[in-house]
């Protein structure tokens, strides 16, 4: 079980506040969706948790330790941007990753790549956008960190790739021990996969709830809720 907490966290880019006074403890395990309009602070939130950036004030901790450059063993971050080397093959990408990330499960990476029907001899340069996304996810999941931060893994993907990506997460995430944070605008598609939802609006967390409980008490979809809280 992993305890991820933010205490009074504010993050600024220049003068602009990306996140304001965020105070929360995340669920210990399962899948949590982070939704909100563009520019609301979703990516900033994930980067803070994986220790890629630091807050101006307040603290982000994983199991009591402040996140930072050494958080790689606890939290993996899947970037929305290109994060693979073009000149490597799929197989080489796996070998490279296993050299870079402590605890990288090479065997799992090979299995995931095979499940997604990627050819290990193909160069990253020649992969379709969908296949690049699949490879990125495989490499991230194979790190087997207690916390996975997936930044827009579905964005710009066709429906079949989106289905594939969600299937991979459901099949290989250890929902009883790992916590997976996913940001996405594909709210309707993501909803059945979520245990928990956070809605970010203007740098503030405006909703922090269990999804089943939300439906039981309010009988509405996440999109309805998003519409209500972001007006």
């Amino acid at each position, binding site marked *: 079980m992993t305890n991820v907490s933010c205490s009074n966290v504010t993050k600024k880019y220049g003068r602009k506040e990306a996140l304001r006074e965020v105070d929360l403890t995340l669920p210990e395990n399962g899948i949590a969706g982070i939704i909100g309009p563009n520019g609301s602070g979703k990516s900033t939130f994930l980067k803070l948790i994986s220790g890629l950036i630091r807050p101006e004030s307040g603290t982000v901790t994983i199991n009591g330790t402040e996140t930072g450059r050494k958080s790689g063993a606890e939290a993996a971050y899947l970037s929305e941007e290109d994060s693979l080397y073009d000149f490597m093959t799929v197989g080489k990408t796996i070998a490279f990753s296993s050299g870079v990330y402590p605890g990288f499960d090479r065997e799992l990476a090979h299995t995931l790549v095979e499940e997604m029907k990627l050819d290990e001899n193909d160069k990253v340069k020649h992969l379709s956008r969908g296949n690049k996304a699949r490879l990125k996810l495989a490499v991230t999941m194979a790190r087997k960190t207690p916390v996975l931060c997936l930044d827009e893994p579905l964005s710009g993907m066709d429906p079949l790739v989106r289905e594939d990506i969600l299937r991979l997460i459901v099949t290989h995430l250890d929902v009883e021990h790992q916590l997976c944070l996913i940001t996405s605008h594909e709210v309707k598609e993501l909803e*059945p996969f979520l245990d928990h939802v956070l809605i970010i609006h203007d740098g503030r967390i405006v909703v922090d709830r269990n999804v*089943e409980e939300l439906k*039981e008490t309010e009988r509405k979809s996440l999109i309805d809720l998003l519409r209500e809280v972001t007006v």
Partner: protein
Amino acid sequence: MSIEFNDYQPIYQQLMDHISQRICRGDLAPGEKLPSVRVMAVEAGVNPNTVSRTYMELEREKIVESRRGQGTFVTEEKTVIEKLRKSQAAVQADRFKSSMEQLGIDKETAFQLLENTWDRNGGAS
């Protein structure tokens, strides 16, 4: 084979209904093993935790039973399945009645319509 979910009901309840219907139809036979939590999650397109909850609730209603280390199995009690079928049918009957009411159709006309549909499409009488 992901399921279409409605917006207003918790997913575990919808998944319970879906599995109950399959049991009533005999698509999942008495004593048959249900897919593992993970396989069911992938099939239905939902979170594995939701499937665990669904299986737990079904077990509480004695529709399935879990055997330690072996998995979850459909009950072999015919009376439980028969009761389940009746309650599922009652839900559908309620739905039919309320849709007819919304259209302003009275009981007699509704019965007539139902009879026509039955005769036209065949089916068990």
